[in-house]
């Protein structure tokens, strides 16, 4: 900015010449400059005052507009409580694969008291105790006459009880609506469904929270209001599940077992159609977890998923399948089975002596430990571990149950060559029956990996290849031979062409070593053998078949008949038609005319 000088030299000099006081010129210039500053300030103030006025008009107009929109909107009933985190009582249904209800909600009421509003606390307490026998009248009287403002009386009551409480007529007794989780099939599929309990409770609603099984695994899905109550559809078939549990319970008592588990799985889709563990419980009235002793003795324990056992000879299938896949052997290769096989100070024996040599097929059919160990020696430690890992036998199953991560396999800390040999016949490694079912399905379905799932699937799983089609076919034939002429001869169900492998493993003694008289008997089967569609694993914990003289504990005598009965019952429910094997009509030509 160019400013006019306060002492313009030309004027000063002229003033001096004229004898005037030059200070007057400077004063004039200063006053003029101040006036200019004021003029500029006034011009600026004018603009800014206009801005202020416009801002005020705008602000008042927006208040007026807001008032008008509020006045124009319809008055609403005041809402009771607008909390940031409302309790949502909603919980979606759980259905089986055919749409049958496995879990649903029932509207009930809770009953609570507000003692300050009560007219006759003592009388009311006595009447309530008469209606609900589990309530203690003295405790209620103490609650009602004390300083409490709010007392829960019962979380859920039946309509009859509600009417009775209503008839007491005390204004301090109030009801709150509430949803109740109900499992209409009782204990059927109890380990899958898990159970539910109340989470956060309010007077007008209560959260239902899943505590186990799919109820816990899919808790947020079931409670998500965004799903609009869309049900959770499981892969379970309710009638198949019920039949499986029924047969398994019968088999468990006939075989004097202390526990049992069964898994029925589709070999292509990985869908679990039935998964049973005995003893079981009623999810409507879930027992408390054990506080002392072994958790696996509780009925809450899911033996099929959480229980890991040494599954014995059923594992021979993996050694043979891998050796076939690697081209080390063919089904007809003769394996040296002279016993005992000595490795260091460790001796491997067979159930009885099978002679000097057996073909690979007969190693499976006769279940030779020595033969399996020798095949595993050819495979080697690293390849065996990689193969078992690719079948998912070294990690917890990915099945959608809250308990699944608890079913972590026990594997040897140092995978020595001895471990390799014992694992070939199913000792030194512990897996759950569900692991076994998934691994059998992966080998027998044509050789691609399937992962077990409890959700209904529409398409077969296209997993990575485990073994070739040819090996899968050879394994089917070997396992079929186990049933037709081997250890599982009780497993032959006419028309369903059962193929399978038995496994009888001594139970490890917690004190060290193995029990002589306690086994886990397993039968892992697939049917129909020519084109397997289902895998069924039946495991009995400590069975002993006592109809004969000496108690028989091997799987062929215990698990196999149970599994056979199961297939007999379940096959028609699954829609499998029995294939009536007709003898070849040699020399007869069928013609259409």
């Amino acid at each position, binding site marked *: 900015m160019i400013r006019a000088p306060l002492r313009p030299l030309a004027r000063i000099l002229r003033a001096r010449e004229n004898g005037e006081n030059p200070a007057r010129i400077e004063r004039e210039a200063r006053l003029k400059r101040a006036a200019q500053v004021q003029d500029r300030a006034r011009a600026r*103030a004018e603009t800014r005052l206009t801005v*202020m006025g416009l801002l*005020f008009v705008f602000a008042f107009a927006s208040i*007026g507009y807001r008032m*008008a929109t509020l006045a124009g909107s319809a008055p609403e009933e*005041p809402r009771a*409580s607008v909390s940031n985190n409302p309790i949502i009582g909603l919980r979606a249904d759980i259905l089986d694969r055919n749409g049958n209800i496995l879990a649903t909600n029932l509207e009930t009421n809770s009953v609570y008291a507000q003692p300050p509003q009560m007219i006759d606390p003592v009388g009311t307490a006595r009447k309530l105790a008469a209606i609900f026998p589990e309530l203690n009248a003295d405790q209620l009287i103490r609650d009602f006459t004390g300083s409490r403002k709010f007392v829960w009386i019962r979380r859920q009551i039946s309509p009859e009880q509600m009417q009775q409480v209503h008839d007491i007529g005390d204004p301090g007794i109030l009801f709150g609506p509430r949803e109740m989780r109900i499992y209409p099939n009782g204990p059927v599929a109890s380990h899958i469904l898990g159970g539910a309990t109340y989470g956060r409770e309010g007077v007008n609603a209560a959260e239902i929270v899943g505590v186990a099984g799919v109820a816990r695994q899919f808790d947020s899905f079931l409670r998500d209001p965004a799903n609009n109550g869309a049900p959770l559809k499981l892969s379970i078939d309710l009638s198949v599940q019920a039949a499986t549990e029924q047969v398994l319970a019968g088999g468990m008592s006939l075989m004097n077992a202390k526990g049992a588990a069964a898994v029925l799985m589709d070999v292509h889709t990985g869908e679990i159609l039935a998964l049973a563990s005995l003893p079981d419980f009623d999810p409507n009235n879930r027992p408390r977890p054990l506080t002392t002793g072994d958790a696996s003795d509780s009925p809450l324990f899911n033996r099929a998923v959480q229980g890991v056992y040494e599954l014995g000879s059923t594992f021979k299938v993996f050694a043979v399948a891998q050796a076939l896949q690697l081209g080390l052997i063919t089904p007809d290769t003769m394996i040296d089975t002279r016993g005992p096989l000595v490795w260091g100070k460790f001796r491997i024996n067979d159930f009885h002596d099978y002679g000097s040599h057996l073909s690979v097929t007969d190693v499976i059919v006769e279940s030779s430990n020595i033969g399996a160990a020798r095949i595993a020696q050819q495979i080697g430690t690293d390849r065996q571990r990689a193969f078992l890992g690719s079948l998912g036998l070294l990690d917890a199953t990915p099945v959608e149950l809250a308990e699944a991560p608890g079913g972590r396999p026990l594997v040897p800390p140092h995978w020595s060559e001895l471990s390799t040999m014992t694992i070939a016949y199913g000792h030194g490694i512990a897996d759950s029956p569900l692991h076994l079912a998934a691994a059998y399905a992966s080998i027998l379905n044509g050789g691609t990996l399937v992962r077990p799932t409890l959700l209904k699937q529409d398409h077969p799983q296209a997993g990575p290849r485990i073994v070739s089609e040819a090996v899968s076919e050879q394994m089917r034939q070997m396992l079929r031979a186990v049933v037709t002429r081997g250890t599982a001869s009780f497993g032959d169900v006419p028309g369903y062409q059962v193929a399978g492998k038995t496994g009888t493993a001594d139970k490890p003694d917690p004190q060290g070593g193995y029990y002589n008289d306690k086994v886990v008997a397993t039968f892992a089967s697939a049917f129909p053998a020519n084109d397997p569609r289902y895998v069924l694993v039946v495991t009995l914990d400590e069975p002993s078949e006592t109809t004969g003289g000496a108690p028989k504990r091997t799987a062929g005598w215990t698990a196999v008949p149970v599994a056979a009965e199961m297939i007999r019952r379940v096959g028609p429910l699954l829609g499998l038609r029995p294939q009536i094997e007709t003898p070849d009509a040699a020399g007869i030509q069928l013609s259409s005319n």
Partner: protein
Amino acid sequence: MTEMVHGSIPVPAGDPIIPRWWRTIDKITLSCVLILFAIGLLLGLASSPPLAARNHLPPFYYVSRQAVFGLMAMGVMMLVSMLSPTMVRRLGVLGFALAFAALAMLPVLGTDFGKGAIRWYSLGFASFQPSEFLKPAFVVVAAWFMAASYEPGGPPGRLFSFGLMIVIVLILALQPDFGQASLILFAWGVMYFVSGAPMTLLSGIAASVAVAGTFAYSHSEHFARRIDGFLSADVDPRTQIGYATDAIREGGFFGVGLGEGQVKWSLPDAHTDFIIAVAAEEYGMILVILIIALYTVVVVRSLSRLKRERDPFIRLAGTGLACAFGVQAMINMGVAVRLLPAKGMTLPFVSYGGSSLIAGGIAVGMLLALTRQRPQNAIGDFLSSRGE
């Protein structure tokens, strides 16, 4: 001829006071204020009987008190508006000294009426809140300082006024009375703005407020929850705001009818902070729009008259008084419609309250005195700018 050129009315010497006052006063603002006061009395008839009933007094006790105080306030307003700007300044500075002393003595002599904050002197028949009187007096003093900085060789008046403002705001915040403190702050800010705050400083302040707000919102959960609660559409119906919103909805455009309103029975502050809700419920949007229009006219008309003002003191003091008056009304109504967070503030001239009425009378009287028409030497401007 001369009037036409000067745009002003020549004032013969010895002109009697009243005719001169009547000729030069802003009659529109004056009538708006009188109408507002009348509306206040009308709403007092509706809103204060529940309070009287609660305090076991005759139903129209508060209305008659309001009428007495209101008449006093109107009288004070008329008297003050007859003063010359110089007298306004002198009395304002004197009043400021008194009010400031009274404010400073509050912790010793004041009473809190059981409301937790010591803001009042109890005079027996009425209570007296120094900060109400301090507000217009502070505006006058701050304008005096700021105007002085325009004089050649004048003091750094804006800095002085800033220091004074900070001291008063701190005292008020300690009471605590954040409402009055924010009004003082706002009035000073407006005067500073009009007196020529540098644009760089203004944009700097705006930017730092935005940055600080964003930082607080993203880092302080408490602050974020307050803001979210304020922004969310849900109103908890058990709060005062909830009742007020409900009342406005019930009223609609034409109201539920005289004496039919319900909100006055549930709101403890229906006669003061939420009087607009009573108005909206009983008389409907019509009256509310009228009230808003009256305030707007008072503020905008005063500001537009001040635009022509040459004297920096008159301009600044008038701006401060008009804006403080308008903003108080704006905050009160903005709270009721949830455009602003809850803050207790009376609606000037409409809400019940003795000392606030008289203080309002003084403030508007000063505003009227400052916006009176007076010679502005427009031709002198014209000539001097030509000669430059």
